[in-house]
């Protein structure tokens, strides 16, 4: 090892391991955590500026959320017959029982949204959209709970939460 190599190693080894942010990041973080909690959404409504994004707003996040919507719509169009709406059905036994239950519930959800667009007035539609986003946020939260290390699940939750806090309707038309 040459003197220059040793000098470089020493300089690298002496590098500090801590740094002070220019401002207190906790208030934004506390709001972001509150926004994460679908079971206690009122905590996200605290006064003060909205939390900064958890991750940069990327087209990927929007694409992930839209994929969730589009996938649900496709399933709903295929299996979500209106006559089945609100009718509890027996979930078959076997290894696919849980997945089948999720699929049926998703179909019912999408079909309900489809009927909302057909029959509801502006106020009812707005309330329905709010309820739909709330349900979608709850579903995204459960996805995060099931797969806590999956960044895509986290982004979906974040995107849906953003849509709710913005008070904006999703891009996808119900």
């Amino acid at each position, binding site marked *: 090892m040459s003197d*220059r*190599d040793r000098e*470089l190693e020493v*300089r*690298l*080894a*002496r*590098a*500090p*391991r*801590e*740094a*002070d*942010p*220019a401002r207190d*990041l*906790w208030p*934004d*973080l*506390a709001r*972001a*955590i509150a926004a*994460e*909690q679908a079971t*206690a959404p009122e*905590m996200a409504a605290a006064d003060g500026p909205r*939390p*900064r*994004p*958890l*991750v*940069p707003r*990327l*087209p*990927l996040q929007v694409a992930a959320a839209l994929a969730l919507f589009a996938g649900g719509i496709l399933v709903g169009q295929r299996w979500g017959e209106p006559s089945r709406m609100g009718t509890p059905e027996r979930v078959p036994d076997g290894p696919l029982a849980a997945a089948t239950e999720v699929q049926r519930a998703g179909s019912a959800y999408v079909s309900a949204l489809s009927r909302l667009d057909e029959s509801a007035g502006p106020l009812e539609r707005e309330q329905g959209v709010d309820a739909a986003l709330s349900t979608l946020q709850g579903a995204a939260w459960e996805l*995060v709970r099931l797969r*806590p*290390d999956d*960044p895509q699940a*986290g982004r979906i939750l974040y995107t849906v939460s953003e849509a709710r806090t913005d008070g904006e309707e999703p891009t996808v038309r119900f």
Partner: protein
Amino acid sequence: MHDRRGEFEAIYREHHRRVYAIALRFARDPDGAEEIVQDAFVRAWRSLPSFNGNSRLSTWLHSVAVNAALDRVRMRSRAEARLDPEVDLDRYADEIGRAMPAADVDLERAVAALPEGAREVVILHYFEGYPCAEIAERMGIVEGTVKSQLHRARQLLKEALA
């Protein structure tokens, strides 16, 4: 819920400087670093109930922060690099000087200017103390690539600091 938030704030207060150092070196700008810090602590908040205590909290949190930083680097590589490829190294050097008064700013600037791949490997190995095998696992590359990146990085750093 608020008690849990209070406990988590105490964890944040104790560890955020360590996490911000990781984030700043990966992001190379204060705004990006703040996003990584927030992402890391939100991940930690989500996963804290499953923290099994087999490792120290600081070690676990450090690992969560490194994953958040690496994910951001990957996302930028895929989605943002073409839109915003330039990093303002002067602004980064200013932030390093402010946030880490004891830092060797010339060295930090030279590391920040390294090519992607070599830069991440240097941060993880020299600043964060990860062995080559673990870096390889975290970055999804073979250990030989990590070693060759380190060798290349040392050459480039020596040239930059000469």
